[in-house]
């Protein structure tokens, strides 16, 4: 039945996508994040929805009637994105031979960057940026809603293992946490009561889904996000009150095993799982030292032959004693992952992309802060996007999540948000038709 429902809705989406490149662009982004196939079991499994919407978007952009209307204010981030993909292409070409996932990962990365390059074309004003934020939040938090409901209804017994698209429980928790600030923004700025409270309900369920992952990194990231959001918000007392409510929900719902698991954060240096990660960081940095410009290729450290070559090399972390490992585990850190895969140059580009998000955030704060009545929405959205990046930079420090789409979308959102303030394009919204008064 689910396949039939998705099929019927796809049929309904298609005319909208074909008649509006912006709709096609929204569906492309949404389809990539929601990975609806992970909830299907029938004939729709083999339908490449994302590719269809991507092809429609690109085909519509080639139409002469649309080409004439295009204005493109990309900014430095666009140059950075192009450099990332060009550098990635050279790295993949020069990679160690025989690595199974090398070209797969590069191809995914290239598709992500291609979509990012289209942001300045479509997200040109407040209305469009708001719709995009909603689409992103819905795409990611659908999974959070499902797992959150299961967690609440089972009284905390449900374990969320993640989905194939996002990875294991830790990666899944990271992506869910990154979407939470977008829901806070939706709650604060949507006028319709249904959307406002719907956003809060989804926020609560998604937070419960994060608990259901039993991820220790997610707990640390959630605390960091909470502190950041409260510090950036004007209503700090209200923020503390909401945080306290969530804390009570955790105390009531989380089972004893969750608290036992979180307790082990304090003894990370004796934890086998954590020290295994440090061993992988040593290998990644050793690969980078041998190939400083282009690295070893995508996920080189996980390839058996390369693992044996760098197994006992201390890299940049020779001062840390680590246990012997017998298998090529994942790098488990966005920074070391990029360092090993793409070298010091690749890491520099990656850090520059992350840094650009915070740089744009500061520019938006300075600019919008002068006229909060007019640009308050941009200020709030920039604060929430920066909270997502804080989650990524902290949570990602112990996860292999360097090539996820969501952080790149957020980096680009921050850029188009700044551009929309610098080059305001006429709002095309029709007069308000209801909502809160």
């Amino acid at each position, binding site marked *: *039945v*689910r396949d039939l*429902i*998705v099929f019927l*809705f796809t049929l*309904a*989406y298609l005319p*909208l*996508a074909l*008649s*509006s490149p*912006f*709709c096609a662009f*929204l*569906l492309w982004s*949404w389809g990539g994040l929601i990975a*609806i196939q992970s*909830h299907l079991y029938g004939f729709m499994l083999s339908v490449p929805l994302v590719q269809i919407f991507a092809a429609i978007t690109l085909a519509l952009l080639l139409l002469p009637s649309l080409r004439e209307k295009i204005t493109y204010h990309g900014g430095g981030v666009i140059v950075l994105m192009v450099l990332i993909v060009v550098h990635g292409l050279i790295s993949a070409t020069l990679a160690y031979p025989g690595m199974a996932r090398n070209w797969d990962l590069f191809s995914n990365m290239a598709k992500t960057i291609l979509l990012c390059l289209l942001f300045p074309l479509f997200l040109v004003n*407040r*209305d*469009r940026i*708001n*719709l995009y934020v*909603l*689409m992103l939040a*819905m795409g990611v938090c*659908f999974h959070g*809603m*499902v797992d959150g*409901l*299961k967690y609440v209804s089972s009284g905390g017994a449900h374990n969320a293992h993640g989905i194939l698209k996002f990875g294991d429980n830790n990666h899944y928790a990271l992506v869910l946490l990154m979407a939470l600030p977008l829901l806070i923004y939706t709650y*604060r*700025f*949507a*006028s*319709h009561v*249904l*959307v406002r409270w719907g956003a809060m309900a989804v926020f609560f369920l998604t937070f419960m889904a994060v608990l259901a992952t039993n991820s220790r990194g997610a707990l640390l990231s959630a605390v960091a996000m909470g502190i950041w959001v409260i510090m950036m918000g004007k209503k700090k007392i209200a923020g503390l009150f909401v945080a306290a409510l969530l804390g009570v929900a955790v105390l009531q719902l989380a089972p004893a095993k969750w608290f036992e698991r979180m307790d082990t954060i304090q003894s990370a240096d004796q934890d086998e799982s954590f020290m295994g990660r440090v061993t992988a960081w040593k290998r990644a940095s050793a690969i980078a030292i041998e190939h400083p410009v282009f690295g070893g290729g995508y996920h080189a450290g996980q390839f058996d032959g390369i693992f044996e070559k760098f197994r006992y090399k201390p890299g940049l972390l020779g001062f840390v004693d680590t246990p012997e490992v017998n298998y090529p585990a994942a790098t488990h850190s966005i920074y070391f992952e990029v360092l090993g895969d793409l070298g010091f140059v690749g890491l520099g580009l990656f850090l520059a992309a992350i840094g650009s998000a915070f740089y744009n955030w500061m520019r938006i704060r300075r600019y919008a802060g002068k006229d*909060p*009545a007019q640009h*308050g*929405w941009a*200020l*709030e959205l920039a604060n929430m996007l920066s909270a997502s990046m804080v989650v990524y930079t902290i949570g990602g420090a112990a996860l292999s999540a360097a090539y996820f789409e969501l952080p790149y979308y957020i980096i680009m959102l921050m850029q188009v948000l700044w551009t929309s303030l610098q080059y305001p394009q006429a709002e*095309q*919204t*029709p*007069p*308000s*038709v*209801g*909502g*809160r*008064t």
Partner: protein
Amino acid sequence: MIEGILMLIMLLFNFCILLHAKALSKRRRVRLVSALFDFSWTFLPRTKRKEGIRRA
């Protein structure tokens, strides 16, 4: 069962977003849908907010 219902709601909500997105480019409005996606709540001081002043 829960997943199916949530999926239906989410797909319907998405359809509404797309309708509104399409209407934006035509400078039109879809009465019910556009009301849902009105993000025009103005960031104003509390006193003015209470008076219900909104962006035109």
